[in-house]
């Protein structure tokens, strides 16, 4: 339990540090342009690195066949997000698809 609290406090300090970084440094230091363009790719890279394993990995291994409900529901959600740009629709339809596929698969 002590290690859990250590993790929480450390993650909290790092998060706070990131959010404060440029606000505190304004007028003192400007980041190099390469760093600024690299930051643009942080959200898509990090979030995709979380999303794809959630879709592909089951119990520690890549599962495509037989039908992996999370993979199919995820692909459906990506299509919906692309077409509709609606957060609500993407999440609700994704969960309903997952339940339907899990139910069909027994």
């Amino acid at each position: 339990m002590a290690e859990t609290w250590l993790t929480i406090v450390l993650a909290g300090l790092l998060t706070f540090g990131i959010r404060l970084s440029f606000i505190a440094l304004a007028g003192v230091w400007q980041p190099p342009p390469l760093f600024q363009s690299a930051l643009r790719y942080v959200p898509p890279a990090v979030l995709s690195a979380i999303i794809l394993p959630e879709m592909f990995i089951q119990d520690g291994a890549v599962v495509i066949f037989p039908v992996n409900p999370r993979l199919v529901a995820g692909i459906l959600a990506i299509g919906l997000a692309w077409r509709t740009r609606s957060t609500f629709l993407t999440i609700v339809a994704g969960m309903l698809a997952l339940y339907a596929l899990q139910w069909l698969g027994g």
Partner: protein
Amino acid sequence: MTAKSLFLQGMKDAIPILVGVAPFGMIYGVLALQAGLSLAAAQGMSLVVFAGSAQFVTVKLIEAGTPWFVIALTAFVINLRHALYSASLAPYLQHLKPHWKGLLAYVLVDEAYALGITRFEQPGSRLQRHWYLLGAGVALWLCWQVSTAAGIFLGAQIPAGWSLDFTLALTFIALVVPSLKDRPMILAAATAGITAVAGYSLPHKLGLILAAAVGIAAGLLSEKLWQKPG
């Protein structure tokens, strides 16, 4: 507008967003308990970290027995996008005292940033607008704490078989997919995703950090390759 009315306006403008934040906070509370965190640690993380996506991933990693320094590093990488918000707001907050900067940094979650930057970019005097950002941040903070508590309260009654953890992937899909506006962005996302799947069995769950680095590098490289003249 006075400081008080700006603060209240910020809170009011956050209300529609809270409808989406509250379920997410509740699901976090449920998952934290299912992962074996104590009541205090589950709520404590919402108070100390106050970052939805990083909290979800942290809980998963704690459950998997990941070493603390890898979890902290992963949370750092996930929240690195907040450096973008910090850089973007910095010019508007430069005149404030350090305690104000600290307070606003603490509540600078995705949604607070989105509301705040919209307000700061409007024409007119900007000297009091930090009150608006604070109002939005406080509303989001309160919602996150209360919904976490509600999730912790419900936690014991919701079976793990409901696959609620999948809402994390779906929320991120809803966030990322509409933001992929050009080829370098798509390439960064695809490369990072594939690397994360391929590197899933790397020791200490380091795959996510590696995947983020590879994705960012792919984005930067392809930007150079596809740069349009002018």
